[in-house]
């Protein structure tokens, strides 16, 4: 039996401006993500990925079209009902981690729990399980500024899962992570989709995610299009050695007349800190 979609988008369109200044950030996008499925949305910078994710996450109202989350049509809800949908139906994971600096790991994870039934008290046991499962037990009382990038993203994942939402929306979840941490985060998310039957939708430039995604959607100029293989141009990140698609990559730097693509901002920063060290690999 094919599981019914947890997330549906019907002819979603978002238009900014009017007249000559009218821009369609998202143009007539329809898609769905089912329970246990990992779907990756890729596309060049400015293609409308974040706008689409914002609409799917009940953060932005579409100009036209409809979003349905776990059987609830967002268009039928007033604006005051949308926060409750975000709190209980959707878990967010961001490229910048977006942890609350003043709160410890455990407090960050429990932060959205006060919006769910039972509150923080009911979620405390679940938080403990997530902390153990994501290998954060030794960092339970640590503040975010003392965590590594991988640890921060694991805390963000635990926070996204604390209210047991059926849908996880992730915006460049590996964008600020090195190769090893990125791989680790991807495997965690993969397990969550498979083991817990959650629908996971990624927006990313990271080609590593393609390996774990069930489907890859290509967004260009605000519309979903067929992804043309000839649009790929694979190169190696000079820092971590990872495969990077020059067409979809968003992190670039020019060095001695060459345009270099990086898998993440972190790799770019490492390159800029000591370009000669990595230049040797550019043969």
């Amino acid at each position: 039996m094919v599981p019914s979609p947890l997330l549906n988008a019907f002819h979603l369109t978002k238009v900014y401006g009017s007249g000559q200044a009218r821009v369609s950030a998202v143009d007539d996008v329809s898609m769905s993500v089912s329970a246990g499925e990992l779907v990756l949305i890729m596309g060049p910078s400015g293609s409308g990925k974040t706008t689409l994710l914002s609409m799917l996450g009940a953060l932005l109202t579409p100009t036209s079209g409809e979003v349905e989350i776990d059987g609830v049509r967002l268009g039928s809800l007033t604006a005051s009902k949308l926060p409750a949908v975000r709190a209980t139906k959707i878990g967010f994971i961001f490229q910048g981690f977006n942890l609350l600096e003043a709160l410890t790991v455990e407090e960050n994870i429990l932060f959205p729990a006060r919006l769910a039934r039972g509150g923080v008290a009911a979620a405390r046991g679940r938080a403990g399980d997530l902390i153990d499962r994501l290998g954060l037990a030794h960092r339970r009382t640590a503040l975010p500024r003392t965590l590594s990038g991988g640890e921060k993203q694991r805390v963000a994942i635990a926070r996204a899962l604390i209210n047991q939402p059926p849908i996880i929306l992730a915006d460049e979840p590996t964008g600020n992570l090195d190769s090893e941490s990125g791989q680790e985060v991807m495997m965690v998310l993969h397990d969550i989709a498979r083991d817990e039957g959650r629908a996971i939708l990624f927006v990313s430039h990271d080609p590593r995610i393609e390996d774990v995604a069930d489907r890859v959607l290509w967004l260009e100029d605000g519309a979903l299009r067929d992804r043309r293989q000839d649009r790929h141009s694979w190169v190696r990140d000079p820092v971590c050695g990872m495969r990077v698609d020059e067409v979809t990559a968003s992190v670039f730097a020019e060095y001695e007349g060459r345009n270099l693509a990086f898998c993440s901002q972190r790799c770019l920063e490492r390159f800029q800190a000591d370009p000669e060290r990595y230049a040797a690999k550019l043969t």
Partner: protein
Amino acid sequence: MFGWAIKSLLNQRASFAASVVGVASAFVLVLFFDAVWRGESVQIVSYIEHSNPDIWVMQSGVSNMHMASSYIWDWKADRIAEIEGVKRVTPILYLNTAIELGGVDYFGYVVGLPEGAARAGPWAISAGHAMPGAGEVVIPARFLDIAGIGIGDQVSIADSQLSVVGLSEGTYSIANPVFFMRYSDLSDILSAAGTYSYLLVDLQPDADPGQVVSRIEDEVEKVNAMTHEAFVASDFRMAMHMGVQILVVMTAIGMALAVVIVSFTAYTQVTRRQRELAIAKALGFRSRMIYLFVVYQSLVVTLLGYFMAIGCTYALVGWVPHWVPNVTLVMSSSSAVQLGASILTVAILSSLPAALRVARLDPVQVFND
């Protein structure tokens, strides 16, 4: 939300401390000025309180001593002395005027005491004697520090030169230091022979002050009689009333400063935490819950500032008189409580600009790395 609000404040300790100190400074301004005025008002009624008769009698239409004039014919004192329940009447002549000490004019009370007056004279003497004779005056001992005037020096009251024979304690205030001279000398200065200003009435042990007040007003025309407590309260009210407008202005300035400082703190917190507040919004927190975050922070800053101000003012009230001996400070718990009651208003008002910013926060910004 409260825990997050507190932890966020503590996460930026320097900014938090600066805000609390700023708010405390504004509140100290309010409390300290109130203490100055209240202290001065207490000193203004100090003479009346220490004279402590059962009843005060004065000219009809007069109900206080500070900045007042009162004249009663001397025969009315004799009439009152015969009223049932009255044990003794001590008359005084009284003048508000400038007194020259060491070439400087000081405004003060001059009390003319009849020879052998049982009360109405100085109640504590640090040097010399309490009862002035003809051509003599008793001055507040504080003038020894302020003007270097002591026993044997000359004082000028309305062109009359008087010799200092006593230094009294507890009779100094900025507005009305009390000078004591012989009734006959003051009567000559005022050309007021046969008149008194106030009559200090002592009662028989079993007499009821309220009933005697009524008898005096019934049996002696054109006088006003008041129990001691009522007269003290009336004079204190008058003294405080004279400073009410200044107090109101100073309180308003202090409160406005507190509102500005707390608003700035709340707004700065929201600006610094804009991304985190947007995260909270994205995660499903409603604007009003995030607004609570701002209000909690404002309340904490305001309350801590308030308690710090109470402590600082309490310390100042203890220390300042050692440095500036002619200032009397009295810290009032009622003023502190009134200020405390306004804290909630200050905190909520201060949160409004930040709340507007919270309402406009776009949660989509969480996607910007």
